[in-house]
């Protein structure tokens, strides 16, 4: 029996689903599972019980709130896909701003007709069994979790900071160049595409276990303004633990 899989997307950019399609093993995935509910990929979608449901995106509307609860009821395992699901994602920057002013800025006099809930990370709404972090997820991370599940391994948490990915690529350190980088406190495993591309890590995968936040902030304060530090942590995983505080201005 092929495992019954569902993929749902809430409000987001669907980049994580694209990263799934980008897998070099996509044929093995297509051949190895039965997609029971996958709106992006097929016409007929059912609400059978799912062995695994991947949920991508942030809960912004009340319809989505209702949907995720229904998904939980139907799934043995729920996996949060990407930083929108795991940590509210980029849209949860709005949580830190005046939402009514924001709606008015975009929709003018029709602002009240737009629904926008305070964005909570998925694990704060329903029980989530695993998180595949990242904005977007790293294709390899998805492959790893799926491989783990297929092989009967328990998907492991990464316990390494992004710096480790970064140094494995032999990159020069952004912090040493005076650029504020979240790498030392950020959850690794992404392969550090950002520092490798000459940019700092924005911590899109949320915090590492036991991050040395105090030391990191001490250091950042020497090279960046308070506003810049807030912006760094209020970006792709604004509602992640610790980042939420820093992004909220607690420095």
């Amino acid at each position: 029996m092929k495992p019954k899989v569902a993929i749902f997307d809430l409000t987001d950019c669907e980049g994580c689903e694209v990263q799934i399609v980008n897998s070099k093993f996509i044929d093995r995935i297509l051949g190895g599972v039965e997609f029971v509910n996958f709106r992006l990929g097929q016409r007929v979608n059912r609400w059978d019980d799912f062995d695994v449901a991947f949920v991508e995106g942030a809960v912004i509307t009340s319809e989505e709130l209702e949907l995720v609860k229904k998904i939980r009821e139907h799934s043995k395992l729920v996996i949060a896909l990407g930083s929108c699901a795991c940590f509210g994602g980029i849209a949860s920057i709005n949580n830190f701003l005046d939402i009514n002013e924001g709606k008015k800025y975009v929709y003018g006099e029709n602002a009240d007709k737009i629904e926008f809930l305070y964005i909570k990370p998925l694990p704060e709404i329903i029980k989530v069994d695993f998180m595949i972090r990242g904005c977007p997820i790293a294709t390899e991370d998805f492959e790893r979790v799926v491989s783990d599940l297929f092989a009967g391994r328990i998907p492991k948490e990464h316990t390494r900071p992004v710096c480790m990915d970064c140094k494995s690529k032999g990159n020069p350190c952004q912090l040493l160049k005076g650029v504020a980088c979240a790498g030392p406190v950020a959850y690794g495993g992404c392969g550090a595409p950002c520092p490798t591309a000459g940019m700092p890590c924005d911590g899109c995968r949320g915090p590492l276990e036991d991050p040395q936040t105090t030391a990191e902030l001490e250091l950042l304060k020497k090279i960046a303004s308070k506003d810049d530090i807030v912006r760094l942590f209020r970006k792709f995983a604004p509602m992640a633990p610790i980042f939420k505080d820093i992004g909220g201005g607690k420095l």
Partner: protein
Amino acid sequence: MENIYKPFKSKILKVTEQTCDTKVFRIEVKDFEYSPGQFVELSIPGIGEAPISITSSPHEKGYIDLCVRRVGTVTNALHRMNAGDYVWIRGPYGVGFPFETIKGKDIVYVAGGIGMAPLRSSLNYVLHHKKDFGKITVLYGARTPADLLYKEEFDKWAKECNFLVTVDSDKLPDGKPSGWKGNIGVVTTLFAKLNYSIKDAIGIVCGPPVMYKFVIQEFRKAGMPDSSIYLSLERHMKCGVGKCQHCQINNRYVCLDGPVFNYADAKQLPESI
């Protein structure tokens, strides 16, 4: 060059359930020499590798027994396997109990939980060569009666040595009473029940990390010198051959210098217990 990381394929001959999370796997081996206290690295292809103590005694030939508690990736996968399946083994590794030094002496074993696994190997070896040793005492503690390992050997052990058992709680894991009639309390409470001196005995301890400190206190109270106490230590371990650094305790390696350490030595080593 011989590949020190390459395991060999071995058949599981028998699986016996010990407790709800512990099973004993009897694994076929040929020409496999080891001494009690040593361990093997057990692999399941595609799952991973884990160090596991040998729980059988060298006088049993043609197989080794591994007593494994289900805690993570490898151990869970192993628990799904049956007789006839294959696992991969390399080893034996480490140094076991120093029987040459212990010979002729009384021995006090103190085992906590899964710590019984390596101690059983030594115990059965000693009982097999009983005339070479003095009085044998075993103090064994587990969380609940349902967690006790090797219950089927209790009668034998009770006959051949002074075998005392205790449980932390007489409730079963589901909270129901078990009908346990024996001792209740942590393993150190058993020391009070010994009505003979263990001052000149050799102490051998294996259990969860928290246990060591308290057991050593009891030994010291009984007047046993530190150099008579042996500990079998657990560490995160990847290679088993002194390279990966995970099991390093300051200037010792659990995989090369242990897992059995003399306490007089270990106490010089910060972080050892």
